[in-house]
């Protein structure tokens, strides 16, 4: 279970925040919880070698702030930072693009994209995202416990 984002950019911190909550709630022993922060392209080796990866990240999924959508990479088109890429700007979509270009086989991946209200400078989640957190955590735990994926 990988949480992504920058806790200094408001709702972009949803990934690391979900990591904290999930660590507090506890996940089965065979699940590793990782805070991927703003790892950028360095996330590529982090993603490799697992049976399955569940990602929580802020995403513009075209919904109301706080609403989240579960999807797999092949179900969506992830927008990439245009043009010259600076490493501080590389996110999950760039990592997946690089993996794809290199024909790296990544583990099966499920992404929970959470619609942010505000990703400006500042700590803490906005009210709608904070309010949605318990439902998000329940959804991630349900995903982890999905009997289809018991190994």
């Amino acid at each position: 279970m990988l949480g992504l984002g920058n806790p200094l950019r408001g709702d972009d911190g949803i990934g690391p925040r979900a990591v904290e909550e999930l660590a507090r709630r506890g996940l089965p022993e065979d699940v590793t919880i990782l805070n991927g922060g703003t790892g950028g392209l360095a996330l590529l080796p982090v993603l490799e070698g697992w049976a399955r990866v569940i990602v929580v990240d802020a995403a513009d999924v075209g919904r109301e702030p706080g609403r989240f959508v579960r999807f797999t990479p092949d179900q969506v088109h992830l927008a990439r930072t245009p043009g010259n890429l600076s490493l501080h700007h590389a996110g999950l979509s760039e990592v997946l693009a690089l993996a794809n270009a290199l024909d790296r086989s990544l583990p099966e991946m499920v992404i929970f994209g959470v619609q942010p209200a505000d990703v400006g400078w500042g700590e803490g989640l906005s009210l709608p995202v904070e309010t949605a957190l318990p439902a998000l955590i329940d959804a991630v735990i349900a995903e982890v416990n999905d009997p289809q994926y018991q190994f």
Partner: protein
Amino acid sequence: MTTVNIDVHHVTRVEGHGNIVVDVKSGEIKKCQFEVVEAPRFFEAFVRGRPYYELNLITCRICGICSVGHNTTSLRATEKAMGVEPSEQTVLLRKLNFHGETIDSHVLHTCYLVAPDFFGVPSVIPLVETHREVVERALRIKKLSGDLCAMVGGRHTHACAMTVGGFTHTPTERELREMQARLVDARADMDETVALFSTLPWPDFERETEYVSLKRDDEYAFIDGRIVTSDGFSYPIEDYRKVTNEECVPFSTAKWTHHNRESYMVGALARFNNNYDQLHPRAKEAAAKLGLKPICYNPFLNSAAQVVEMVHCVEDSIRIIDELLTRGVQPENPPEMEVKAGEGVGSCDVPRGILFHNYVYDENGICTEANCVIPTNQNMANLNHDMQALLPRIMDKPQDEIRLMLEMLVRAYDPCISCSAHFLTVTFV
């Protein structure tokens, strides 16, 4: 007559935010500068009031790329203030950790950030389509160097095992042997990297300047030593202010520095120029293949000097592991120390150049004053003078070409702007 107007808002493929602004009217340069617009960081302010054992853990967060560099420099400053000297084993482990980070940072810069310019692609992702092997190799080297840092420091970035006087964790013999075998295997990747960079058409541009780095009698200096310059000056680390002479400029949140001339350069090229004789023989061979000879005044070749240093660091890591295996690595308690009031200056030559941390502690070991002088700052004035020297030579080229050349020059310095912008004083002139 030539009229050029370039405003590159946020140069890409550098760390942090900086702008290139060029204004040429009727052949006359009105403006040609690199502006650092990154927000200030305030690290020096927020370590005040913190205990001595926290400072390395806080200041390493200045940079996610040269975290080990800041950490090591910070520990040396604190150790000098407290009168502690690390053990021989600690010195070896710190060097090994440092080499891991230097390789990591240099491969990132040369292969991910610089190479795309020469292959005409905007970033590393499309580079896969044209030069897949370059990216695959860079990823392998990055993984190796990251694993090396994690083996010594406890994790890849922001090491948790580094502490005042030593390490709270030591690698096992088996880990060391496995790492050494991987480093030996990495020689092939190093050879390929040298071969690749030796074919690149480096821009033909020279401007004489002063090069500042550390120097040691016993080895190619990365940690401790004396400050030397290519103009023949030499200072103890404690006299760093005589070299850095920091000043504020109105268009940059990064301070400028100067010493014997209007500016100086730090980083791989400065180290190469000042300490060439102490490079590993394989690194000297690499330099010969790259056409790099001291003293080199072409700032674009800073990236080539980084490739040479990668070779050196791989070889020296293999040697250090040999030494560690011969003497055996034992868990050690940090040396006995008495917390006392004092001041210390630490200096390391981190991937982007010479770095200084200077702390003052009170009798309880609480920091009362801190000063950090970052390599990227020290390069800002020199970069601006290079831009101003380069522009008249390329002014008649198409605007896109001028912009690319200036961006390449900025990237050659491998600026880590996020690290350098740590002081907001706006001086209006």
